[in-house]
C-alpha cells in the first residue's frame, strides 16, 4: 500500500485551522526560524481517513480474530470503557492542576479513581499499597526493583544480585543494572517447576531479591511457594511477584498472603484494557508494609473529611518515575471493568481462563508434544518438536494459523521448551472458538505429515507473504525522507 506521503498533492488540506481573531501578526526572528521545509503530506481529510482505514484492515485484532497469544492475555476489551474514558471530565483535565494551590479540589473525581483503584488492587492481590504511576509492565518491574534497592540501601544491606527462574519472564538486565544488581538464573526441574535445591545454592546474604511468576511461564502453579518465600526472607531478600499471570488466580490466590513483598500488575492484560497495537498499557506496582516508604511520589491520600489529596512528602521515596500519575486513561478503563465484574465476575474470569486452557491442552496433547503433562493454569505450552522432525517448525505452524484467520500463539517462548507454542485463550473465548482453533491445529499437524513442504510459503491469504528481515536489518530504511534533505 502507498504511504500517506505518496498520496500528497500540493495544495490539498486535511484540516483548516481557525482564522486568527486577533489583529496581531507576530514575526519569528529569522535567527530562530525554521529554514528547511517540513514534508508532512498534503492530503484531504477523506484521504487520511481512507488511508488509515485501509491500513487497519491489514491487522489482526481481538475484535476480528481469535488471538491466543501466550503471556499477553488478549481478552475482549469491553466497549463501554472506551466511552467512559472519553468523558471530557477526564480527557480535558490538565495534569498540573492538582499542583496549583488548592488545586486538588479541582480533580477530586480523578484522584478518587486512583485511590479506589489502589484499594481494589490491594484486595485482589493481598498487597498493602499500590502506585499507579508505572506506564507498562516493564516499567512496573523497574519501579519494583528500584524500591527493592532503596529498601536494602536504607537497611545497610550489601546486596549484589537478583535471582530469577529460567522459565520466568525473567527480568531485563538493564532493570537490575539501574538498581546496581546483576541477574542470576535458577533452572527448572523436569516438571517445569523451579528446582528448590538449585535455588538454595543461589541464596546467599548477597541476594537482593527473587523474582517469580506464579503460575510460572509453563502455566504451572508452584506448590512450594511458601517454602521459597521463607528461604528468601531468611536472608532479608525481597520476594517479587511478576503479575503477568494474574488472570489465572483471581479469588483463589493472593501473592500478598504467601510472602511476596512487591508485585506489578498489567492492567492491559488482566483488566481488559486494549493493547493498542503495543501500548499504551499500565503496570501499577503493589507493596507490602515494609516497602511503603519507598513508593514513588506523588501518592494519593484520603483525608479525614473524605476528600483526596496528593502527598509528595516521603523522604525515603524513590522519587519521580513518570511525569504524572500514570496512564490515567488506561487506569480509568480498568477501574470501570473492575466495577462491572465485581467480586464474582473476577473469580469467574479466572475460572473460565483456566478451564479454556486445560480444554485446549487435553484436546491437543494427542497431536503435539506436551512438555509438562499436568493441570495448567490460564495458558498451556505445547511443543512442535515432533513436527519439527519433518521440517515443520513452530513458526511454520504460526503462519498456517494466520491463513485460518487465527492470530498465532506465542512461539519460541518459554526458552526452556524446544519449539514452544504458548497458548493463552482467555475466558472471553467460547468453546466454539476453541474448537475452531483446535481443528486448525490438528489440520496443521496432519499437513506436517502429508506435505511438510506446503508450510514454506505460508501465509498465502495476507496482503504480504513472509518478509525479508535480513534485508530490513542490512539495508536500513526507517524513514521515508531519508534520502531527501528534510
Amino acid at each position, binding site marked *: 500500500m502507498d504511504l500517506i506521503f505518496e498520496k500528497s498533492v500540493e495544495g490539498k488540506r486535511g484540516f483548516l485551522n481557525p482564522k486568527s481573531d486577533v489583529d496581531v501578526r507576530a514575526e519569528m526572528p529569522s535567527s530562530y526560524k525554521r529554514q528547511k521545509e517540513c514534508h508532512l503530506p498534503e492530503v484531504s481529510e477523506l484521504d487520511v481517513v481512507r488511508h488509515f482505514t485501509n491500513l487497519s484492515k491489514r491487522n489482526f485484532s481481538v475484535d476480528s480474530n481469535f488471538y491466543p497469544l501466550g*503471556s499477553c492475555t488478549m481478552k475482549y476489551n469491553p466497549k463501554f470503557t472506551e466511552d467512559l474514558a472519553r468523558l471530557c471530565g477526564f480527557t480535558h483535565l490538565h495534569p498540573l492542576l492538582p499542583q496549583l494551590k488548592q488545586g486538588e479540589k479541582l480533580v477530586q473525581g480523578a484522584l478518587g479513581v486512583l485511590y479506589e483503584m489502589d484499594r481494589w488492587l490491594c484486595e485482589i492481590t493481598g498487597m498493602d499499597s499500590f502506585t499507579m504511576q508505572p506506564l507498562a*509492565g*516493564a516499567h512496573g*518491574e523497574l519501579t519494583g526493583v528500584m524500591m527493592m534497592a532503596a529498601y536494602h540501601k536504607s537497611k545497610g544491606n550489601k546486596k549484589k544480585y537478583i535471582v530469577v527462574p529460567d522459565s*520466568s*519472564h*525473567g*527480568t*531485563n*538486565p538493564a532493570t537490575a543494572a539501574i538498581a546496581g544488581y546483576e*541477574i542470576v538464573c535458577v533452572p527448572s526441574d523436569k516438571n517445569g517447576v523451579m528446582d528448590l535445591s538449585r535455588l538454595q545454592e543461589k541464596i546467599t546474604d548477597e541476594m537482593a531479591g527473587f523474582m517469580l511468576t506464579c503460575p510460572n511461564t509453563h502455566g504451572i502453579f508452584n506448590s512450594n511457594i511458601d517454602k521459597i518465600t521463607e528461604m528468601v526472607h531468611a536472608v532479608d531478600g525481597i520476594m517479587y511477584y511478576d503479575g*503477568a499471570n494474574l488472570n489465572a488466580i483471581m479469588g483463589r490466590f493472593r501473592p500478598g498472603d504467601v510472602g511476596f513483598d512487591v508485585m506489578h500488575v498489567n492492567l492491559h492484560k488482566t483488566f481488559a484494557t486494549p493493547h493498542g497495537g503495543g501500548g499504551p498499557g499500565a503496570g501499577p506496582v503493589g507493596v507490602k508494609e515494609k516497602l511503603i516508604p519507598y513508593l514513588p511520589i506523588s501518592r494519593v491520600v484520603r483525608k479525614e473529611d473524605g476528600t483526596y489529596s496528593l502527598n509528595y512528602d516521603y523522604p525515603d521515596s524513590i522519587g519521580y518515575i513518570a511525569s504524572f500519575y500514570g496512564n490515567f486513561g488506561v487506569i480509568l478503563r480498568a477501574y470501570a471493568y473492575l466495577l462491572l465484574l465485581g467480586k464474582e465476575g473476577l473469580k469467574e474470569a479466572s475460572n473460565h481462563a483456566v478451564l479454556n486452557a486445560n480444554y485446549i491442552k487435553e484436546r491437543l496433547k494427542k497431536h503435539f508434544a506436551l512438555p509438562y503433562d499436568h493441570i495448567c493454569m490460564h495458558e498451556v505450552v505445547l511443543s512442535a518438536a515432533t513436527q519439527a522432525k519433518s521440517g515443520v*517448525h513452530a*513458526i511454520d505452524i*504460526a503462519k498456517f494459523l494466520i491463513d485460518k484467520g487465527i492470530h498465532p500463539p*506465542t*512461539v*519460541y*517462548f518459554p*526458552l526452556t521448551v*524446544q519449539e514452544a507454542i504458548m497458548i493463552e485463550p482467555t475466558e472471553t473465548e467460547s468453546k466454539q472458538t476453541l474448537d475452531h482453533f483446535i481443528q486448525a491445529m490438528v489440520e496443521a499437524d496432519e499437513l506436517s505429515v502429508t506435505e511438510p513442504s506446503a508450510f514454506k510459503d505460508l501465509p498465502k491469504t495476507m496482503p504480504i507473504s*513472509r518478509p525479508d*528481515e*535480513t534485508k530490513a*536489518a*542490512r539495508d536500513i530504511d526507517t524513514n521515508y525522507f531519508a534520502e531527501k534533505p528534510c
Partner: protein
Amino acid sequence: MEHYGSQYLDLLSLDEHVPLVVWRSIIKGEEIMEVEDHLLYTKDHEWVNVEENVATIGITDYAQSSLGDITYIELPPADDEVEQFGNFASIESVKAASDIFSPMSGRVIEVNENLEADPALINKSCYHKGWIAKIEICDMDEASNLMTADEYRSFLESVG
C-alpha cells in the same frame, strides 16, 4: 532459519532477557560445524591464525551459524590495544547480537573493511574472506590458553 528469532526476541524486549548461549542451544540443530585444522580456538567461538607475530582473528562456523544472517559488525579502531579475551568488536544478526573477544593480547593493525559493506562475508566464508581483524601479538605464550582444532571439536560436542 532466519525467521526464528525475531518474533521471539521481540518478546524479549518487553520483559525478559536471556544470554546468547541459550539461543545457540536452541537453534544449532544437528548441522555439522566446520573446524579448520591449522587454527587455534576460544570457548567463545573465535578462531585465530598465528603467523609470526601477527594474529588474524575471526569467528567460527559454529558462531556464524548460530547467529544466522549477519547484518552488522562493529570493528575495532586501528591501533586499539586489546587484551586476551577482552571485548574488541561486536556483531549483529537478525536475531541476536554478540560481543567478539580477542583470542590474544595485542595492537590492532588491520581490520577487514569489506565487512562494513558486506557483513554476510562472515556467513559465506567465516575462515577466509570473513576474517575480522589482525593484531600484532605482544605475548606469544598466550597461545597456550587456546584450544587446538581437535580440542575445539570435542568442546563443540560437549556444548552441542
